């Protein structure tokens, strides 16, 4: 991720250094994606928790948000 960021940078818009974004992106991003996985796909094709409770609880949201279901 060391490619040049400076080439596009405008003087008036300071960029946030990659080194500052990366830890947030890795830990925050992963947790947030896990949350989306629980809403969108848990107990469908794959399951981390046994049973069908999670699937049934978020059932309507899963359909309406466009995830494959059933």
């Amino acid at each position, binding site marked *: 991720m060391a490619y040049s960021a400076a080439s596009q940078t405008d003087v008036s818009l300071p960029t946030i250094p990659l080194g500052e974004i990366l830890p947030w992106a890795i830990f925050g991003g992963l947790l947030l994606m896990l949350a989306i996985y629980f809403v969108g796909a848990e107990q469908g094709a794959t399951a981390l928790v046994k049973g069908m409770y999670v699937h049934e609880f978020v059932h309507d949201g899963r359909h309406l948000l466009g995830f*494959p279901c059933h």
Partner: protein
Amino acid sequence: MTGKLLVRGMLVGLLAGILAFGFAKVFGEPQIDRAIAFEEQMAQMHGDAPEEELVSREVQSSLGLFTGVVVYSISLGGIFALVFAYALGRVGNIGPRGLAALLALAAFVTLILVPGLKYPANPPSVGDPDTIAQRTRLFFLMLLVSVIAAVIAINAACKLMTARGIWSGSIIAVALYVVIMAIAGFLFPAINEVPETFSAVLLWKFRVASLGIQLVLWTTVGLVFGWAAERVLDLPRYSTRA
């Protein structure tokens, strides 16, 4: 700075989620109820025993729907903020409000609209439980291809805009995305599991409601996040109050 933006992204996601839930409740739930009624009718005709309810319909259509939509929105709001933090100052000279609006538009097209043309949202009773693994795989693979195509197009746009100007540069970049997605759409296998006798009107209404939910979500994120970010970033030149 990233942390502050992330928190704001999640808060804006919460707001967007509440609005999207309102839309889903009013325009989406009636279609779900009708689709479930069809499903039960079909099951009855085949002489199947009624499905055991693990979670009642009341809970599914209120607390369940709220939890699903809001958790989804908060998470996407957070990821949106992370992408915004990276993109600020790196994709041309666009201030926070304009950047947030453009990123939200790009996210709506890339994550929802275009993948949805190939694998659209389906109401209950559409979809064979035996193919869920394959459908899930294809759905997320299509999302991945779309995101990669968008990253390629945005990178190209940055270079092309300097060389050919904003108008030509952005048109070529969008065309690049469209071509990649058209090829992907052509190559990916079609899925059609809509029962013969399922109401076409109901299917249409369900999909329009689904698209509407996403539109409410991304419009809110695009318009409100830029305003929230502007307050954190403290960029004098772009401040509306200066």
